[in-house]
């Protein structure tokens, strides 16, 4: 049996970061991963989808080229090459994690991990089992797509995200069930590549985690792009006959049917809590996720959970941050718990969405006296220059303290700008400090400044 100071189960952005931090602090550290290092994020999530969406952006740019004076004949598109690009990026990054593990002297075990006792882990690979012992074990096993009752992902006609990321051919008619971040990214991707997309959402708006105003603007944009959006709609059943999927949908008590070539199921995710030996140890779970305290400790002494498996929001950067704070707490360093209102979220559809903090609906629910700033990108010079001026920057401030409660952005490159508001929140800057900050001209980020000014009723350009 091997003795270590700390074991991390799961090599995604939560687990591998936790392992690096532990190794930096001097712990003899083990990382156990059953597939490839990097987890879903790197292999089947954030990164490969961004590679595909870059292809969609190129398609859109080509379509718009005439505005900038470029005329050319029919353009050929090889889908296999785009998918190949996406896979090679994922592979390259995964190898990068291999290197980071070596550099930090982290022992990596490949195999399926199971807790056999408190502080004792069994790792099984190719039938061989070995036991690893450590006083601290961090579970970072991640999450997977939730199944939709009555719908079976067959990989041929009904796709999960992996199939949706590696298509052989472009489906002509595509149904996407679920309009969360994953659903709208695929809708945007396939629409730009040329598919006819229908996006179905059970609640009354798409991207329901975002501010309602953002949802509406995205739905308007999708409408202009001829993406059919059906809200308040449930998919009852899918029947496959002769290569055609017939979907029965119910909306406001009315049933309708539609025919599609492929279906993508993206209705949320559920934690990977099975086969870990949690039941025998009496680890408390809640609706498919492991329960933890603010420092990611489970109810079992010496056992911790971080990232997706420890509950929402399911974001790579949240997982990494939790990994670091969990390890630092173990090391006796004064760690700060993560403030859920300061975790930014980004969605890479076209137009992009980025937000941090409270939505207007949440601020109202909490009974906060707030002021709203809005600035439309149609009055931003840089946005007009690049021919991409549909968008909004919305800011929410506490009327009494001036605290930045939330920021909601939709438009070009907003995912690269949201950290400006994140830094302001972390430094507890008020509308006042942001007002006095000089934003460069011409830039898309000037809209951030104007939105803050607007919250004080002093916007200069609208």
């Amino acid at each position, binding site marked *: 049996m091997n003795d270590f100071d700390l074991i991390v189960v799961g090599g995604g952005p939560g687990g591998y970061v936790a392992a690096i931090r532990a190794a930096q602090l001097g712990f003899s550290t083990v990382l156990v991963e059953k597939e490839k290092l990097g987890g879903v994020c790197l292999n089947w999530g954030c990164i490969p989808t961004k590679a595909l969406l870059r292809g969609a952006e190129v398609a859109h740019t080509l379509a718009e080229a005439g505005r900038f004076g470029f005329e050319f004949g029919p353009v050929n598109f090889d889908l296999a090459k785009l998918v190949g690009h996406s896979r090679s990026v994922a592979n390259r990054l995964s190898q990068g994690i291999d290197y980071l593990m070596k550099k930090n002297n982290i022992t990596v075990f490949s195999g399926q991990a199971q807790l056999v006792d*408190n*502080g004792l882990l069994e790792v099984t690979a190719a039938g061989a089992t070995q036991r690893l012992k450590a006083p601290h074990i961090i579970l970072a096993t991640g999450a997977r797509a939730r199944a939709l009752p009555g719908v079976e992902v067959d990989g041929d006609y009904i796709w999960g995200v992996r199939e949706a990321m590696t298509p052989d051919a472009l489906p002509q008619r595509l149904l996407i069930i679920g309009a969360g971040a994953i659903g709208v990214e695929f809708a945007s991707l396939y629409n730009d590549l040329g598919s006819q997309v229908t996006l179905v959402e059970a609640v009354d708006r798409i991207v329901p985690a975002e501010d309602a105003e953002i949802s509406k603007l995205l739905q308007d944009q999708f409408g202009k792009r001829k993406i059919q959006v059906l809200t308040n709609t449930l998919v009852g059943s899918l029947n496959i006959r002769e290569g055609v999927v017939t979907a029965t949908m119910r909306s406001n008590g009315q049933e309708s049917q539609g025919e599609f070539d492929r279906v993508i199921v993206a209705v949320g995710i559920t934690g990977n809590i099975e086969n870990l030996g949690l039941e025998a140890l009496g*680890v408390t779970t809640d609706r498919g996720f492991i329960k933890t305290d603010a420092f990611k400790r489970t109810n079992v002494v010496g056992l911790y959970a971080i990232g997706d498996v420890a509950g929402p929001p399911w974001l790579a950067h949240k997982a990494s941050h939790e990994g670091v704070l969990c390890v630092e707490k173990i*090391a006796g360093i004064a760690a700060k718990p993560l403030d859920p209102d300061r975790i930014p979220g980004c969605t890479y559809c076209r137009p992009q969405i980025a937000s941090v903090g409270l939505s207007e609906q949440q601020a109202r629910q909490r009974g906060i006296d707030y002021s709203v700033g809005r600035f439309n990108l149609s009055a931003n010079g840089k946005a007009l220059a690049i021919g991409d001026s549909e968008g909004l920057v919305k800011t929410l401030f506490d009327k009494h303290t001036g605290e930045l409660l939330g920021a909601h952005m939709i438009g070009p490159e907003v995912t690269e700008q949201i950290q400006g508001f994140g830094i302001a929140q972390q430094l507890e800057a008020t509308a006042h400090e942001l007002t006095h900050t000089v934003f460069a001209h011409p830039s898309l980020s000037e809209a951030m400044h104007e939105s803050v000014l607007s919250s004080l009723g002093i916007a200069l350009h609208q």
Partner: protein
Amino acid sequence: MTISAISMPKWGMEMSEGLVSDWHFAIGDTIQAGDDVVDVETSKIVNTVTATGSGVLRAITAQSGETLAVGAILGVLADADTSDEEIAAFIRSKSASGTSEVAAEPVAPTQPAPQSPAPPAVAAAVVELPARAIASVTPLPAAVQLGALAAGEDDSQVAASPVARRLAAQYGVNLNNISASGRHGRVSKSDLEAAVSAAGGKLISPAPATTHSRPAVDDSLIKATPVARRLAQELGISLADCRCSGDRGRVSKADVEAAAALQRKLEIFPDLPADEPEPYLTNTMSGMRKTIAARLQQSKQTAPHFRVQVDVEIDNLLAVRQQINASSSQARVSVNDFIIKACASALMQVPGVNVQLEGDTIRQFRHADISVAVAIDEGLITPIVRQADTKGLIAISQETRDLATRAKINRLQADEFQGGSFCISNLGMYGVKQFDAIINPPQAAILAVGSGEQRPVVKNGSLQVATVMTLTLSSDHRIIDGALAAQFMASLKGFLEQPATMLG
């Protein structure tokens, strides 16, 4: 006749060197044990070295403003009738170990230290002052113009140590005019000072240590931007001394910089850092290794060790352990946790073993503060489970796990590993059947724990199998006699074989 050294202490695991701040005594003063002798500053704290013995302060080998490694000699305590030759020899022997900067780079003094009662010949050996400390104590303007040395072309490309470059700016010296003898042909601090002296210039005195001190006033309630607060801390500026021109009356970065500039003007003495470390220091033992070496050698030489050994059957204990661990998800009690608890219980029953020996004094502890030896990369350390007699097994288990975790990454506080009334060393996890441990002074006993293994035992004339563990107690016979040690081991065996009796 006894001669003892006042050495650079080690306050906490991360401390490797300290800055000598203020001496409370002069050479020739009589010091009693427990007196505050000299203030030492680390990157974290300012603390006072107290005398562990009594005597006359015969030599000061580290002046205010000098930075020395942990363990380096700072001064010498001895009887008034100890000869100066002996003092000098003592310093040489201490310095030979390579910890003292003073001995490594002797500088002949141009004058004997005025306070020294010793004759000049001895003072030359004893009161070795580094060059800068011999300088005039009269305040000088920061930049002393030295005519010829100042002229020359741009010297920004001349190889020089950072300290030398800084000093050159303060003296107004062009580095092109200095001949280099430092490492890699660099102009060193001593090259620069030699040239300044040769040119008739006076050397600038080291900065008073007080310039390092943190703000005396608590400024945590003063409104400031995050950057300003950090910068103020960094520069040792109190936010209370700053203007507050920032938004809504906050102290801004510019305010702190202005306050710092003002303070610099007021301070005539520049702030000199210590010399660069000499390369041979890297070959010395780590502070921890030295401590282990010195203490254990001292222990073996001064404490007459004797050992008593018992075999303990732990099948009952293992069953109880399983029960406890199954009872709560917060419980992960190990066999070692049981041994800590059982030792605490036995020490309460046989308090004669719960002792430390200091000089002629025997300290009998009211509680069992149990040191637990933890192997770490650099050696070993013994974090303490305090008052283990008052704690339950689960509490002991959690505390031990936290201490061991932080011990492995050098994050224990000094008070977490200094002291202890009894020590446990467990090599059972390595499969060691039994061993003898060396007492960790001033403690008087240490328990060596072997691995639990199935062995044949004879009970009522028949052969049976039991899980047996061999425990060996090393005791200091000066204060623990054989019968007492045997009594302790019998008590300990009883608690371990019948764990329920620890509840009594």
